């Protein structure tokens, strides 16, 4: 009986008709949130309970932050019904919060407290936080440099690749000349050009832009081309009988019909250009996250490396998310597209 009344009080105030599934419902909706708050509290405790084996300045703040998150998780999920969409979103992510709290606790204990994992190769969470607070300007500079380089190279590569692909797909004459070149040079990994590019281009920055553009351009060209080439003749027939001129056939028939293929090329190009970006920054350009990684390794600053890796993965993931949302906007007419 007491269990029921307890769950009644906690369960969100929404009127419930039957009592039997009440507990089950409450556990499903809020139980995970309670669990999340327990794992995050454990993380906070693990920060504050023992002394650190090393010298880290952010341990205390991290512990407090963990408790704050634990409180947010608890009240956010239990009271989700009063919080609207934010509460719903929190509830949906609660299982991940549980896992994350558990992982952080384990990480904290295994590194900073009991040193199961050897230092300095495995820095504790507070060491990484320390990088973000104390080395922020340099990190931001690196982020900015990387984004600038990547964006420039990618846009150039995607544009040139798209235009080349459309031209090859549309015109036999262009195909005759470009196709063999593409077959010969395209499959070469862009990084193979690195040594040549760095002494033929006026600056390492322009060389890297070229390499990123190259890595992007090849898949975009090939997939745009195959997209344009595979457009059904029936579409052209329809458009021609309705009075379409060649420019209309290219711009309003071939390109929209090929767009799904083009996006596959854009995704592939994005992936391979990331690889080139990091290598180019490590070897040539003295800026950017790749260079930051290299520099951190030189100083055996492992926490900085992890911090930079996390930022890098957020950026790459963000770029892909952005591309997905552009695609979803342009290709609303397609059914059953993949959600990222």
């Amino acid at each position: 009986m007491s269990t029921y009344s307890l769950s009644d009080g906690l369960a969100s105030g929404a009127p419930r008709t039957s009592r039997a599934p009440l507990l089950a419902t409450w556990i499903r909706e809020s139980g995970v949130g309670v669990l999340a708050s327990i794992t995050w509290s454990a993380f906070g405790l693990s920060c504050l309970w023992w002394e650190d084996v090393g010298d880290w300045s952010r341990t205390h703040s991290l512990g407090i932050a963990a408790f704050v998150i634990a409180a947010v998780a608890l009240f956010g999920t239990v009271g989700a019904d009063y919080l609207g969409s934010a509460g719903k979103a929190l509830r949906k992510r609660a299982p991940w919060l549980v896992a994350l709290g558990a992982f952080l606790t384990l990480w904290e204990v295994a590194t900073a407290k009991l040193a199961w994992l050897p230092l300095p190769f495995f820095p504790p969470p507070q060491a990484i936080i320390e990088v973000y607070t104390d080395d922020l300007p340099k990190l931001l500079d690196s982020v900015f440099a990387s984004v600038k380089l990547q964006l420039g190279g990618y846009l150039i590569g995607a544009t040139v690749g798209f235009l080349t692909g459309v031209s090859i797909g549309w015109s036999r004459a262009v195909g005759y000349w470009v196709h063999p070149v593409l077959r010969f040079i395209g499959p070469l990994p862009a990084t193979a050009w690195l040594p040549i590019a760095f002494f033929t281009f006026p600056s390492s920055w322009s060389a890297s832009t070229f390499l990123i553009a190259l890595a992007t351009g090849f898949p975009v060209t090939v997939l745009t081309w195959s997209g344009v080439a595979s457009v059904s003749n029936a579409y052209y027939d329809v458009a021609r009988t309705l009075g379409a001129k060649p420019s209309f056939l290219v711009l309003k028939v071939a390109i929209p019909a090929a767009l799904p293929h083009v996006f596959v090329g854009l995704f592939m190009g994005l992936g391979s250009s990331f690889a080139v970006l990091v290598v180019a920054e490590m070897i040539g350009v003295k800026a950017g996250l790749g260079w930051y990684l290299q520099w951190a390794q030189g100083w055996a600053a492992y926490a900085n490396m992890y911090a930079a890796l996390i930022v890098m993965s957020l950026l790459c993931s963000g770029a892909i998310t952005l591309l997905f949302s552009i695609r979803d906007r342009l290709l609303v007419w397609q059914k059953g597209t993949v959600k990222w």
Partner: protein
Amino acid sequence: MVATALAEAVTHPAAGAALDIEQVSHAFDIDGIELPVLSDVSISVEPGEFVALLGPSGCGKSTLLRLVAGLDKPKAGRLREDEERIKHPHPSRVVVFQDPTLFPWRSVWDNVALGLEAQGILKSQRQRVDDALDLVGLSSFRNAYPHQLSGGMAQRVALARALVNDPKILILDEPLGKLDSLTRITMQAELVSLWQRKAFTTLLVTHDAEEALVLANRVIVFSERPAHVKADIRVDRPYPRHRGDPYLADLRRQILGLLGLDATW
């Protein structure tokens, strides 16, 4: 009443054009082997005539329509629209293909607007698109994408996409084949009233002898491939026609006989 709206939107009703098909033969190369499809077909169509083409499946009806549209060139013979050689496709001859072939990346409205957009007159004539959609009863689906339509609805959109161009020759390749019998009868009536008002010349390929007789003033029966004209039958009956008309029933029996169905009828 929607039909009147369409008539009003078009200030200069395009009268039909004459169509001359003169000794046209055509063949396809399949792996180096020549497949004759049309053999010496001659049909002379008066302006504003409604001609139905009947023939066994695969005999070459769609091929003939492609030649009339100007999408392909015949191996021999000539095609002329109002005395002018047909060399290229032209929006005065609009085709509704056997498959609706709507552009999947365009909404229903944009699909119907295709012809006006291609000719660069969409901006001033948007009303025509709305009217054409009204005519086929799909105004409420203007923003839908083709994958959200049923087969019959897609075919109606294809019809609207053709009609919006106000063609002189309307070329229909079994456009009503996929419709349910009820919509089909309604669309047949719409087609007749539209044709009577606009007086465009109509070529209609159909498998259905009854449909041919209800709609056309001339029914041409083709032979097996390679197709040649087997019979050219005038249908002198006033519109609207009744399916039960004994005169039409008689013609129907005659046509089915020509198509090789004597025994069952």
